[in-house]
Each structure stands twice: as structure tokens, then as C-alpha cells.
């Protein structure tokens, strides 16, 4: 068995990147995720695997370096926190429009604007509904533990390359800053030129030696051809929605009420469920692991069994809209949230349950 370590979520992102054979990280520091690049700089992977680690002059530069690396079929990534991710939206929509794979880590903090440095989940809309302009989606993974910070780096790259689509790890300040036990993934070598040719040779810019040139762009001047491309993108998203939904159900078998929460909020809710069950309230948790694609079907299927659903988010209520769409009026769906970097307590979530459903 691999060695168990005690590490911060942010440190694990860095370690997992090196171990999964990442070719390049381009970032710009911001709390609460600066340990990602700090750890990479301390580890000096360029001496070990040849991975490039570069502190760019700005977030804009960082995401465009990712764009460039992704064009070449390389495994490239960036990380930031909310205000920095907003700056990266232009690059992200271009990357999505050019159908390129990459990994973006967002360790969310309170907003809007510069906001606070404390944990929040108020960037759910931005992450799951595109974020930049145009009809597009990122594949969004929501880790709820330090172990998942490790696991989702590899998974994120896998999905990004499978669908030629940017993937995002949507964490928050709690998951980034906390330390837990983690079993790090074994080392995978970086892809060789031959492997890149095999995996991404049909589109990547690998030098046109003896073949037609590849053009990577998100620009199309003909509206009908752009619409055809949009249809192709939408078909890809339907495929992602059909094949890549991931979620976890905890204590749902006998539940009368359901909490839906992701990331650190889902961890806090597990404590609330322990407290509620001690008080005789049968409650379960459905934790979306992929936020896009959203577990719409799984939530809809719970409607026959459940008397009421409560979404718990560190926001004014964003995911609750997707839950209401899934439920389509069949059961009462309420939201409980804290904002601005305030983390809800397990006790106040139990109170919210009691108040909303008159328990």
C-alpha cells in the first residue's frame, strides 16, 4: 500500500500534478490557494520529470500559457481562486471554443469583487454554466476531501482529454487549507512525443512534418458553420451528461428528508445528519461529485421517497436552481446558506431543516 501522508488540499494538488505526468503548470498567486504553486516551486519537478512550473505575470498570461500548451497536446494546468478565475474566463471560453483539454483548479473564496479570503461556494454558476461568453461547459469536479483533491487531478485530465474539453476542480478554502490523510497516486511518466501523437495527433500542433497543417481557433466567420460547430459541442455535452455523472449517497435508504450539498458543505452536512438522526429525524445526503454534468436523474429518482429537500451551500443559493429543475415541483426544495466566507455550523443546518420542514 502507498504511504499515507498528512497534507493540505492545496499541497496535494501540486503533488498529484507531478505524479500524474503533468507537463506544465502556469499560475499567479492568490489566497487561499497559493500553496499549490509554492509546493510546486519547492518540489522543483523540472529537475525530476521535466514538468514546467511558471509564475506568470498575471492570471491572463497564465491561462493563455495553458491555451498554448494545450494546443500542443500537452497536459497543462493552472489554479487560482475566485477573482483570479474571473480574470481567466476569456481564456477559458477560447479554450472551450477551440476544444482543448486542460485542468483548472478553483479554490473558491467569498465574493463578489475581491471579497474575502475565507471559504465560499458562490462561484457555482460561474463554474457550471460556462463562466465566459458563448454556449459552453467545463467538466466540473467538486472534491470533499484532501484525498479527492489527489484523485481528481488525474480524473480531471482523463476527462479533459477524453472529451477535448477543459475540466475544473471546484474546491473551496476549507478543502484547500485543511490537512487530512492522503494516499498519493503512484507516479505516471509524462507522455512522450510518440504518445502525444497517438493520443492527440489528429488535432494537436505537433509540427506538420508530412501531413496537412492543423489549425486551432475559436473563430468562424460563417454563422451557419459556427452553428454546426455549436451543435457538435452540444452533442458532446449530451454525451458527457449521459456518461460522466458522479455522486455519492449517504444514509439515503430510509431517509424522509434529503440534504443536497457538495464540497466542504457536504462534509459539514454529514455532521448535521449525525445530529439530526440522534434527534430521530431520518435524513440522508446526496453529494454531487460532478457539478457539471449534474446528477439530475439521481435527484429526480429520490422524489418518490423524500418529503423535502434542503440544499446547503456557502452561497445565496445557486445549486438549488439545478435541484429545483431536477425535482420539477414534485417535492419542496429549500435552500440554506451562509455567504461571504462564513462557514455554516452543523447545528445551524439542523435548525434550518427543522424550520423549513416543521420538524
Amino acid at each position, binding site marked *: 500500500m502507498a504511504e*499515507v501522508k*498528512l497534507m493540505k488540499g492545496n499541497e496535494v494538488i501540486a503533488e498529484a500534478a507531478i505524479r500524474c505526468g503533468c507537463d506544465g503548470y502556469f499560475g499567479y498567486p492568490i*489566497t*487561499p490557494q497559493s500553496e499549490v504553486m509554492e509546493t510546486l516551486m519547492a518540489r522543483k519537478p523540472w529537475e525530476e520529470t521535466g514538468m514546467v512550473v511558471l509564475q506568470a505575470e498575471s492570471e491572463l498570461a497564465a491561462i493563455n500559457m495553458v491555451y498554448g500548451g494545450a494546443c500542443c497536446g500537452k497536459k497543462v494546468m493552472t489554479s487560482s481562486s475566485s477573482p483570479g478565475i474571473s480574470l481567466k474566463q476569456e481564456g477559458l471560453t477560447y479554450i472551450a471554443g477551440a476544444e482543448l483539454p486542460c485542468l483548472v483548479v478553483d479554490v473558491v473564496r467569498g465574493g463578489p469583487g475581491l471579497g474575502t*479570503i*475565507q471559504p465560499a461556494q458562490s462561484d457555482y454558476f460561474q463554474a457550471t454554466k460556462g463562466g465566459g461568453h458563448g454556449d459552453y461547459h467545463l467538466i466540473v469536479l467538486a472534491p470533499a476531501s484532501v484525498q479527492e483533491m489527489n484523485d481528481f487531478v488525474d480524473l480531471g485530465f482523463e476527462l479533459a482529454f477524453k472529451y477535448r474539453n477543459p475540466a475544473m476542480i471546484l474546491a473551496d*478554502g*476549507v478543502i484547500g*487549507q*485543511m*490537512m*487530512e*490523510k492522503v494516499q498519493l497516486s503512484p507516479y505516471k511518466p509524462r507522455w512522450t512525443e510518440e504518445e502525444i501523437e497517438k493520443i492527440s495527433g489528429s488535432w494537436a500542433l505537433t509540427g506538420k512534418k508530412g501531413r496537412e497543417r492543423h489549425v486551432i481557433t475559436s473563430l468562424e466567420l460563417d454563422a451557419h458553420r459556427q452553428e454546426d460547430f455549436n451543435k457538435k459541442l452540444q452533442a458532446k455535452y449530451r454525451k458527457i451528461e449521459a456518461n460522466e455523472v458522479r455522486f455519492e449517497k449517504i444514509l439515503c435508504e430510509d431517509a424522509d428528508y434529503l440534504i443536497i450539498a457538495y464540497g*466542504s458543505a457536504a*462534509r*459539514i*452536512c*454529514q*455532521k*448535521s*445528519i*449525525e445530529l439530526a438522526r440522534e434527534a430521530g429525524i431520518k435524513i440522508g445526503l446526496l453529494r454531487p461529485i460532478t457539478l457539471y454534468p449534474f446528477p439530475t436523474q439521481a435527484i429526480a429518482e429520490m422524489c418518490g421517497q423524500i418529503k423535502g429537500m434542503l440544499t446547503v451551500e456557502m452561497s445565496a443559493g445557486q445549486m438549488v436552481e439545478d435541484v429545483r429543475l431536477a425535482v420539477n415541483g414534485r417535492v419542496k426544495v429549500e435552500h440554506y446558506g451562509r455567504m461571504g466566507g462564513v*462557514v455554516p*455550523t*452543523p*447545528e445551524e443546518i439542523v435548525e434550518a431543516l427543522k424550520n423549513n420542514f416543521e420538524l
Partner: protein
Amino acid sequence: MTEEIIIAGFGGQGVLSMGKILAYSGIMQDQEVSWMPSYGPEMRGGTANVTVIISDERISSPVLTRFDTAIILNQQSMDKFESQVKPGGTLIYDPNGITHHPTRQDINIYRIEGARLAAESGNPKIFNMIILGGFLKVKPIVKIENVEKGLQKSLPPRHHNLIPMNIEAIQTGMNHIETANQL
């Protein structure tokens, strides 16, 4: 067994590293652990606290407001966390700088003169290990040999020569913790 602990004091007192050593010790005896710091704009002289959970089972919330044990190292933390100890729980504090001593009757309260003992030893850096020793005397949730193993894991090899001094400080803390209120 699940022990939910808050360690709170000034930045620079070694609050976060004490929590880390405790968490590492839990790993050394195959338990689940979590370590969640307050990571606001704290710095040396500001307040700092860390929630450490050690459990035989999967840990649910890393963020808590009710604790089995509060280890309190300044007045601001006393004001904030005395009320958050579960009834029947434990409060350990260093009276140095405390003007309002804890008054609850429904919890076990212990005093440890960590700051004074560290100053007398001539090495103020061992303060947090003295406090840790006091805690382990009243709550022996991790074995000393696992603390030692944890130190070996968490410290870079160049600092391994400091481990005996740290273990000695833990012993000092164990020998000097006093009962202030026993249920």
C-alpha cells in the same frame, strides 16, 4: 473513539504545529485525522486556532463549533471557546495573560503554566510541546511513542536532533498540569 479538539492562542505560539504533531500522531496509530486552521489574515501576535479531529471512524465535518477539548492559550480564545466545550468536556488553559478565568462547572478544567515553564527552561520554543504534554496527561488519546514517530515524519531530517528535547518538554507538561475543576 472520536476526539474533537480546538487549540487556540496567539500566532507564533506554535498552535498550528502542535495540532499538526497531534494529527500526525493519530496517523501513526492508524486513526482518521483532520486539521483545519483558521487561515484569516492572522500573523504573529494575532489570534490563531486549529481544529483537530482524531477518530477511529471516517470524519464528517472538519469544521466544528462544539468540542470535546479546548486548549486555550490567550484571553481572546478563552472568551470565544469556553462556551463551545461540550458539557462533560475538557478545558485546558495557560493562566499566563488570562484575566477572566473559566467559570463553567459542567466541564473538567485544567491549568498548565506552559509559558512560565518554557521561559524557565530557557527555550521558549518548547512552549507548545509542554502544553501538548499537559493535554496528553489528561487525554491520553495518542501514545508518546506515536508522537515521537509523528515528529520523525513531520520534521525534516536535519531537525531530528531536536526530537528528544521535544519529548522531554511533553514529559514536563505531563508532570505540571493541575486540576482546576474536576467533575
